[in-house]
């Protein structure tokens, strides 16, 4: 791709031009800037990405703090509040917006009267923990196989290639759904505590098991070009071990695509948890996750629209903010955006 003016524009990047002008007119001291700082400077210029960073940080803080708040008794996802429900209407919450009040800002659940905000906050913790673990494992598997395939080449490369073909040919949704019975069964036999632990662990395992091929392909492609560079030859000549070459020489050059990919996997896995929960796989009520809180709200579309809508909106907010963050990171880290 040629570097034309329109190209620079397409990355929403006027910083590059600014900096160059500054340097030419000698307004700033010319100092070496690391690629990371350049990327951060580009990222900071983009208001949408910054907003996404703020929102995702808030979600992360919420996820970290809700177990603490739960222990302190500030949020309480389990206690039913029958007194807030109107028996005459069939146990729907009294008052406006599904029983909104200062002590229950998002109202209470119809039927049981548990606090909706508490359930969503604690559910977000579990959903984000599942998504985070699955995304970390996916990226780890993909990176290791990608580096090994790309660097070794030959028979190892084609073996990994076939493994990728095999994994991608499986109908993913059906496999995630269908394997739950057998795999949960086997894991319980192996001594994983039944209930939320085994079901949550199952989601992490299958999402990673079927999610790694795209990133392995991506990393393999990158490694193919990196391994031809002089510093790798130098390391080989100096007798560096394979492990050193993989992790000390090659891996540090891959963090940009890995970071972007990881950020985009998070929302995909939050959605996947919700979808699997709808199909009856995953952590079950009463332990809240975003997926099963939404699943429990689906039947109230007519009677308590607010309760029906809020869990889905929270999921959408997480998905959108993480996606925008990933896009922003990609634009900022893209070497084509000028360095």
């Amino acid at each position, binding site marked *: 791709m040629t570097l034309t003016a329109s190209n620079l524009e397409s990355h929403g990047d006027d910083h590059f031009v600014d900096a160059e002008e500054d340097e030419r007119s000698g307004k700033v001291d010319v100092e070496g800037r690391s690629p990371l700082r350049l990327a951060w400077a580009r990222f900071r210029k983009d208001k949408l990405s910054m907003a996404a960073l703020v929102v995702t940080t808030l979600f992360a803080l919420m996820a970290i703090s809700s177990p603490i708040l739960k222990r302190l008794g500030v949020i309480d996802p389990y206690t039913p509040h029958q007194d807030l429900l109107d028996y005459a209407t069939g146990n729907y919450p009294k008052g406006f917006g599904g029983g909104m009040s200062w002590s229950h800002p998002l109202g209470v659940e119809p039927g049981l009267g548990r606090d909706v905000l508490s359930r969503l906050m604690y559910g977000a913790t579990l959903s984000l923990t599942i998504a985070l673990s699955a995304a970390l494992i996916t990226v780890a598997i993909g990176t290791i196989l990608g580096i090994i395939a790309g660097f070794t080449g030959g028979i190892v490369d084609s073996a990994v290639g076939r493994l990728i073909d095999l994994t991608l040919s499986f109908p993913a949704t059906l496999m995630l759904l269908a394997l739950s019975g057998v795999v949960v069964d086997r894991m319980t036999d192996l001594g994983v505590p039944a209930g939320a632990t085994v079901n949550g662990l199952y989601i992490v395992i299958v999402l990673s098991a079927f999610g790694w091929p795209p990133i392995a392909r991506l990393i393999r492609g990158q490694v193919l070009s990196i391994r031809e560079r002089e510093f790798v030859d130098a390391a080989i000549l100096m007798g560096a071990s394979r492990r050193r070459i993989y992790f000390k020489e090659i891996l540090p050059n891959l963090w940009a695509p890995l970071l972007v990919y990881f950020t985009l996997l998070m929302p995909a896995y939050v*959605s996947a948890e919700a979808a699997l929960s709808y199909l009856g796989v995953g952590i079950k009520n009463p332990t809240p996750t975003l997926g099963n809180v939404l699943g429990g709200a689906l039947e109230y579309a007519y009677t308590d629209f607010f309760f029906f809508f809020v869990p889905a909106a929270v999921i959408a907010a997480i998905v959108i903010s993480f996606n925008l963050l990933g896009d922003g990171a990609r634009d900022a880290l893209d070497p084509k955006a000028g360095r």
Partner: protein
Amino acid sequence: MFAYTIRRVISGILLLVVMSVVTFYLFYASSSTPERFACGPKCTPTQLDTTKRALGYDEPTIVQWGKFAKGFVAGREFPDDEKLRKAAPEQVVECPRGCLGYSYGYSKPVNTLIKDKLPISVSLAISAFVIWIAGGVLLGITAALFKGRLIDKAIVGLSLLAFAFPTFFIGLLLLKFVAIRWGIVELPKYSDFTDNPFLWVSGLILPAITLALVYMAGYIRMTRAFVLETMSEDYIRTARAKGLTRRVVIGKHTLRAVLTPLVTLSGLDLAGLLGGAIITETVFNFNGVGKLSFTAVQRYDLPLIVGIVLLLASFVIVANIVVDLLYAVIDPRVRLG
């Protein structure tokens, strides 16, 4: 090209064979007692044992796979046990060549079950495909042409919004409000295309939109990015410079370049859907292959699950080959080797 096709077909078949072994081990050997699911929670040990032998789970997984493979190549009769077949000859079910197994839950060969449901899933997939391709390409081009302006931001923003909400939520929203409460469209229901094409369309519209929305956001963004990238190429500038109208430059020169990657991606996405969209079919209660597989999972009907998994895998493998060949047809620069 011929040699290439042959080579791809052979490696595709090999891949399917390996997949069938892996699938068998995943489902039949992962659980220590697969019969527990078929028998139910209150099964006594004797009943468990009977179930195990009746379903053939007592044999080693590789033997069970061998029977499956033999049945696929040469056909097979059910029940498996010869003594049972002799005892009740009127209940023997013939499963001709290409046999994918026998569902004990439905007491029917897997092929028959899938054959009944496939038209529904294929109809749904194709109508969704038409919507998401037409919508994705048109909106993507529009967004690219109005880059940075309000229209562009609205298209990209709304498509992200539609993508962010869970599919089943959007489906239920459409079903419960557009169809039931407001009655704008008829209740989604599958009817045969040959019976009444109009009913076929009106019954499919909401599920197809729901399914299309999942893919639309991605296609809008891809088309937009491809168009923008292509428009900054030198040959587009040349075309503009020699005085071609904007319409010709966009309609002919740009679209042509954008088409190639879109064909590849959409072909694979469509193939993945032909075998049923589990979530959409469940939401709208469409009795396609997706719903069938959902029921199979709930009943723990292992032969049915394995049969569907392998059929869907073969769709994807065939699509991969077809798309690679198409790629060479659309783009003469591509050489197959």
